[in-house]
């Protein structure tokens, strides 16, 4: 949907995003418990993260450094001195009934993110979204409401899993600089790519290691900001786009009908494609923030910040530029950045693979087959070396593109235990391009298909396709198509 046609003329959309990122440090923010996702409930817990009386938090230095690294990747300023505050509120999955967070001085302030948005006319526009702050906090446990609706209201009872409680969490708050759903989506996608590039989180929306809430308002152009609603339960980049579109149109319609917008939190219903009131913010919740007396100030002297900055890897913008310069098409460059496939690409290219071909295979067939198999690239055993080998087998005519796809499937099924050559050999997948062998088959096919041959000789050259098909059948698809064509023309004369 083209941006400028979303809202009626004279209206403007204003969006700010709050993104939470769970760091993938080995241990939690305040204790030595594992952060592993998906373990049995309440197995990664201890007196500290379950808030036992007398237990005390000790900061995870690595988490603070990772947060600093991400802050620098977002062009942010690092506070020389900052504090942890307690955010007080009662909720059963919050073990201490306060969340350790940051308040007046966040670890990182005043950053920005540049995103590229493709416009309706196909041109690409670069937009800058300001980042107000990045602060550190801790994740909560998970409540499971048993019975009735599955939500808290009307549940028979609630079960709480504290495995997630105390996992280091970053909150990244953008300025309300976003004016269309596409930019919101591009921001989230780019942030995800940066988080992965600096390798501080898996940033998986499906596992909740990156979560996004959207603050949405509309106004008549030139007027002050309208009342905003906060949209929750956005489970994918696509949901974000759909929800923002829906909410913007809903707000404009409500105002044009003479209504007003309430300050409220709304829930995105993915199935029905609508936002619904979750809770109304009649007054600002008083969290009674105060400096956590169990913790001391976090200091980041300039020298330390520079040490962290030196750890910054190549960031997505630079990576995309490098790929484009290497001849990778734009769409594929965008698709590769921020995924595991980038490392395989880099490895393959370093081993001599042709950039565009390597990217094409990774973004196309490799990604496609992995999705179909439901496995991750990291667990597939597929490497840069294998990609180089596969491309070489195509290049020297041993494999057709079609056969190469079959070989790839074999490599993935074996989880990398067999190389492409080994798979081709074991399964007898090789192009028949031996001239003598192929000529005999071609001559037989020509002899068996008088009518078609006559048709071709009569000028219907397209009919040669049927004969190529016959040869392919005879060779179980392993005939070199180019050579088969040549020989057919030669034999038919």
């Amino acid at each position, binding site marked *: 949907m083209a941006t400028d046609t979303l809202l009626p003329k004279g209206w403007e959309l204003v969006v700010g995003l709050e993104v939470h990122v769970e760091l993938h440090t080995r241990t939690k923010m305040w204790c030595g418990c594992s952060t592993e996702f998906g373990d049995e409930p309440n197995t990664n817990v201890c*007196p500290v993260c379950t808030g036992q*009386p007398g237990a005390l938090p000790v900061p995870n230095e690595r988490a603070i450094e990772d947060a600093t690294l991400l802050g620098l990747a977002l062009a942010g300023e690092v506070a020389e001195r900052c504090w942890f505050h307690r955010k007080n509120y009662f909720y059963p999955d919050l*073990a201490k009934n306060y969340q350790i967070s940051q308040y007046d001085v966040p670890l990182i302030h005043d950053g920005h993110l540049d995103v590229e948005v493709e416009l309706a006319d196909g041109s690409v526009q670069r937009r800058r979204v300001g980042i107000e702050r990045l602060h550190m906090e801790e994740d909560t446990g998970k409540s499971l409401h048993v019975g009735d609706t599955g939500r808290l209201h009307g549940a028979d009872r609630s079960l709480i899993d504290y495995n997630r409680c105390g996992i280091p969490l970053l909150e990244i708050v953008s300025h309300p600089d976003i004016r269309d759903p596409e930019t919101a989506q591009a921001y989230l996608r780019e942030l995800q790519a940066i988080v992965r590039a600096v390798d501080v989180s898996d940033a998986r929306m499906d596992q909740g290691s990156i979560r996004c809430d959207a603050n949405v308002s509309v106004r008549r152009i030139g007027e002050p900001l309208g009342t905003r609603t906060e949209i929750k339960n956005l489970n994918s980049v696509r949901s974000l786009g759909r929800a923002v579109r829906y909410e913007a149109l809903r707000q404009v319609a409500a105002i044009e009908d003479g209504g007003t917008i309430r300050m409220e939190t709304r829930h995105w219903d993915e199935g029905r494609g609508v936002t619904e009131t979750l809770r109304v913010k009649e007054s600002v919740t008083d969290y009674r923030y105060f400096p956590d*007396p169990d913790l001391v100030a976090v200091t980041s002297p300039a020298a330390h910040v520079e040490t962290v900055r030196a750890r910054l890897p190549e960031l997505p913008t630079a990576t995309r530029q490098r790929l484009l310069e290497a001849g990778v098409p734009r769409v594929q460059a965008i698709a590769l950045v921020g995924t595991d496939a980038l490392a395989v690409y880099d490895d393959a290219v370093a081993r001599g693979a042709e950039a565009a071909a390597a990217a094409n295979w990774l973004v196309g067939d490799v990604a496609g087959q992995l999705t179909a198999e439901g496995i991750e690239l990291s667990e597939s055993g597929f490497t840069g070396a294998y990609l180089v080998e596969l491309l070489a087998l195509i290049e020297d005519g041993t494999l057709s593109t079609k056969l190469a796809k079959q070989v790839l499937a074999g490599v993935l099924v074996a989880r990398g235990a067999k190389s492409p050559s080994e798979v081709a050999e074991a399964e007898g997948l090789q192009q028949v391009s031996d001239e003598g062998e192929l000529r005999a088959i071609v001559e037989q096919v020509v002899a068996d298909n008088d009518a078609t041959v006559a048709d071709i000789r009569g000028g219907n050259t397209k009919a040669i396709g049927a004969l190529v098909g016959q040869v392919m059948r005879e060779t179980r698809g392993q005939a070199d198509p180019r050579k088969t064509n040549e020989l057919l023309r030669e034999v038919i004369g």
Partner: protein
Amino acid sequence: MTDPTQATAVELATALSAGEVSAREVVDAHLERIAAVDGIVAHGDVWNAKPAEELTPDQPHAFLAVTAAAARAHADDVDARRAAGEPLGPLAGVPLALKDVLTMRGAPTTCGSRMLEGWEPPYDATVTERLRAADVVVLGKTNMDEFAMGSSTENSAFGGTRNPWDLDRVPGGSSGGSASAVAGLLAPLAIGTDTGGSIRQPAALTGLVGVKPTYGTMSRYGLVAFASSLDQAGPFARTVEDAARLQSVTWGHDPRDATSVPGEVPDLLAGLQDGVAGLKVGVVRELQGEGYEPGVELVFAAALERLAGLGAEIVEVSLPHASYGLPAYYLIAPSEASSNLARFDGVRYGLRVDAPTAEEMNAATRAAGFGPEVKRRIMIGTHALSSGYYDAYYLQASKVRTLIAEDFRSAFEQVDVLVSPTSPSVAFRFGDKTADPLAMYRNDVATVPASLAGIPALSLPAGLAAAPDDPTTSLPVGLQLMAPLKRDDLMYRAAWAFEQATGFAALPTGPRAVSRSVTTQEVR
């Protein structure tokens, strides 16, 4: 050794290492005295205190639980290792009473609250671990004001503790159980905790040495928090050297407490006997006069003379903001408490009062589980932190705190240690101050300034004064010594010299004192 319960920790340690008595004999002697006098149901592995309504007026009720079986097993283990010639720590085999606010596996940690009645902690506090590592034998857990909020131990949900000097009077608080245990010869040593005076004031009221070490030198890991920026565990003992030895085996940096001060702590014993000659002792102008009982003032004046007689140079100094200490303290401590005590919600441990929704369950549990003083402080703290009041209350109090710390810094540029009375009054009767919270809070007027500044402070017996309401009863008066940050050694040195000069025998005497004759069998 005729009666181990009358011996100091150093005397016991000497006799133990000489083989004159076994750790088991020492522990048994104390267990028997506890069983005889304290109002304990002495059977099973863990002995429990009788319900308050079953206690008689001659029972101090110092202990809430006595870990008899574990104490005996530990004593036997110490004896076995001593017999095998293993090197043991200086206090190995010496018994101790632990305030029920520090976690220890194998017995409940209640904090004197219905909220945690029966809760067995899944882990040991660092202080508990270090006591164990030093082979100090923990006898049990002592009574206290609920969540350490109080100055008389009357706020315990399990009934008050009596002062061994006069069983009709309070032992002070909040560590009243620990003080009563040591003063009543139920243990030679105890650990208490001090947030605004909760070790020093009961030490003063029961004639003991009680110490609040420099903030951050005693790990708070496993100390159930009242006010995190102020809470500090510390020793109770009948002599200065006993206290110094106990502090020496329990303090020092702990990586599990982020507020633990880094680096080495000073040696408390090396210079202990160096005396006070040439030491400059500052008398705090603001911590005397109005509000202090005449008897307390008299003993304090005599103490100054004695210090001067020992060669100390006495000068008057001013802490201009000290008088704001009490109001600042009673904003900061409840503010932190309101957040610290939020975790008691019925979800994970302790009391749960069932109700249809989680929110109602939280509310019903907290309504039933907390006593009135705890509720009062949660409400004060919640208000002081709330939006619109934060600047006027919590923030302003924090600024006062900084000014008081500055006052102390300047004072310590002029003098080596500071002195004041520990408490404005001697031990008072049950119920005297319960009707008026502010009267109770004023007990802490002399102790909170050091708490707010984080500096070390010690109370030791300075002499006896007649009770203002009963001239026939003489009660102990405490002298408070304060030293610069991490100069606990200096304070101990001055205290030792004073103690030697006064020869105060910290044993309760008087018509209504706890019986000293109900002792144990003769132990050889």
